[in-house]
């Protein structure tokens, strides 16, 4: 890695002020597990890193709101999410996703905010949280804002964050009886970067699917809602013909990329099949 300066602000406002909206070689670093890979390969050569460890205590808490929503501070480690009792009880899909998300050491160090802000479509957390209807809170120099997580993503490794904005927390609403599942499909080891990620959540009323969210990642340039697949599921009984229609709709609407994890036609076929499996897994409530 090439030399750079590391600054260590003690407050969120100080951290934001040390970032520069015009300067791409100045970036925040939380756990650094993803950023260091870019630095080692020479893809990113920073002039300055703004280390966020100084603001960790107040921004790493996982708290349960009165309405059942879980607020996860951006500096929480992935391992903290994995071990959190409220996450285990209320969002088991999130805990399960952690098991094959890289490995224990990376989960010990990587932070939730970094995993969301990095914009790498192969990450597991963004599709799972997006399918759970999560919203991100963002702090900037003048004001804070909030948005549905899937709106954070603008393209391949691109987000709508300004260079001097920081994610402060992600809030996940209570499931309230909704079913959810995440299918991670890898072409090598189970904990590898996926060829495809499919996350679903939906309600059930009188045997019919209500208000489904279907989110695809890894095979696409960014975390993407599959609106046609959602329409195919809405108000339908989750039987084989419905699931087939939804899988076909997703395979049709997704813009899929070829990469080292599989060709586009292969991943399209994976999506067709794994969307059905994701809905079935959500219905089954899935043991580990």
């Amino acid at each position, binding site marked *: *890695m090439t030399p750079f300066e590391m600054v260590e602000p003690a407050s969120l406002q100080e951290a934001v002020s040390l970032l520069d909206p015009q300067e791409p070689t100045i970036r925040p670093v939380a756990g650094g*597990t993803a950023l260091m890979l870019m*630095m080692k390969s020479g893809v990113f050569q920073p002039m300055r890193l703004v280390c966020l460890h100084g603001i960790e205590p107040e921004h790493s808490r996982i708290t349960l709101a009165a309405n059942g929503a879980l607020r996860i501070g951006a500096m929480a480690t992935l391992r903290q999410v994995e071990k959190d009792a409220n996450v285990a009880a209320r969002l088991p899909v999130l805990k399960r996703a952690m098991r094959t998300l890289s490995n*224990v*050491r990376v989960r*010990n*160090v990587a932070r939730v905010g970094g995993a969301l802000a990095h914009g790498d479509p192969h990450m597991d957390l963004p599709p799972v949280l997006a399918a759970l209807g999560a919203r991100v809170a963002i702090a900037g120099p003048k004001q804070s804002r909030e948005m549905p997580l899937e709106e954070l993503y603008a393209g391949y490794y691109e987000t709508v964050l300004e260079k001097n904005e920081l994610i402060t927390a992600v809030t996940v609403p209570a499931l309230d009886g909704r079913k959810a599942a995440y299918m991670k499909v890898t072409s090598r*080891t189970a904990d590898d970067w996926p060829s495809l990620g499919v996350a679903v959540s939906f309600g059930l009323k009188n045997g019919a699917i209500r208000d489904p969210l279907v989110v695809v990642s890894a095979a696409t340039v960014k975390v993407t809602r599959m609106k046609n697949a959602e329409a195919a599921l809405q108000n339908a009984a989750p039987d084989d013909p419905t699931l087939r229609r939804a899988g076909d709709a997703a395979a049709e609407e997704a813009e899929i990329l070829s990469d080292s994890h599989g060709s586009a036609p292969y991943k399209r076929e994976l999506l067709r099949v794994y969307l059905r499996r994701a809905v079935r897994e959500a219905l089954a409530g899935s043991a580990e």
Partner: protein
Amino acid sequence: MNTARTITFTLNGQQVSTAIEPHRNLVELLQRFDLFGSRESCGQGLCGCCTVLVDDVAVSGCLYFATWVDGKSVTTVEHLDADGALSPVQQAFIDAGAFQCGYCTPGFILMSHQLLKEHPNPSDDDIRHYLSGNLCRCAAYPEIIEAVKLAAKR
């Protein structure tokens, strides 16, 4: 650019100080103290050869900035027999023959210590998941799983 800063931390029970630049990683820092048990192998956090405990939490030394250990406690594989006897995990690896070339062994041993702290009586599945981020190119995996279970029994 000279951006070196002085850090002070506890290294295997001893307080130490050194000046280091922000672009150095934890493996490079340990090498300055003649500690070579943590080895950078894949350089991507995948293989576990560079495992180090920071405040008793396992990290990949190759993906951890050296300056981040300032004020913290760092434990390497070299410290496990500090009281003169091999740790139960180390002894179990020998007894089960859980290595051939030994390059990955420090990482496996440190991760196995962490695994047994969290799962004192681990199932095969627990072991496989916990150690999935450690690679052994000699493929001593069956013996490694045996060693972890042996250490758990002791």
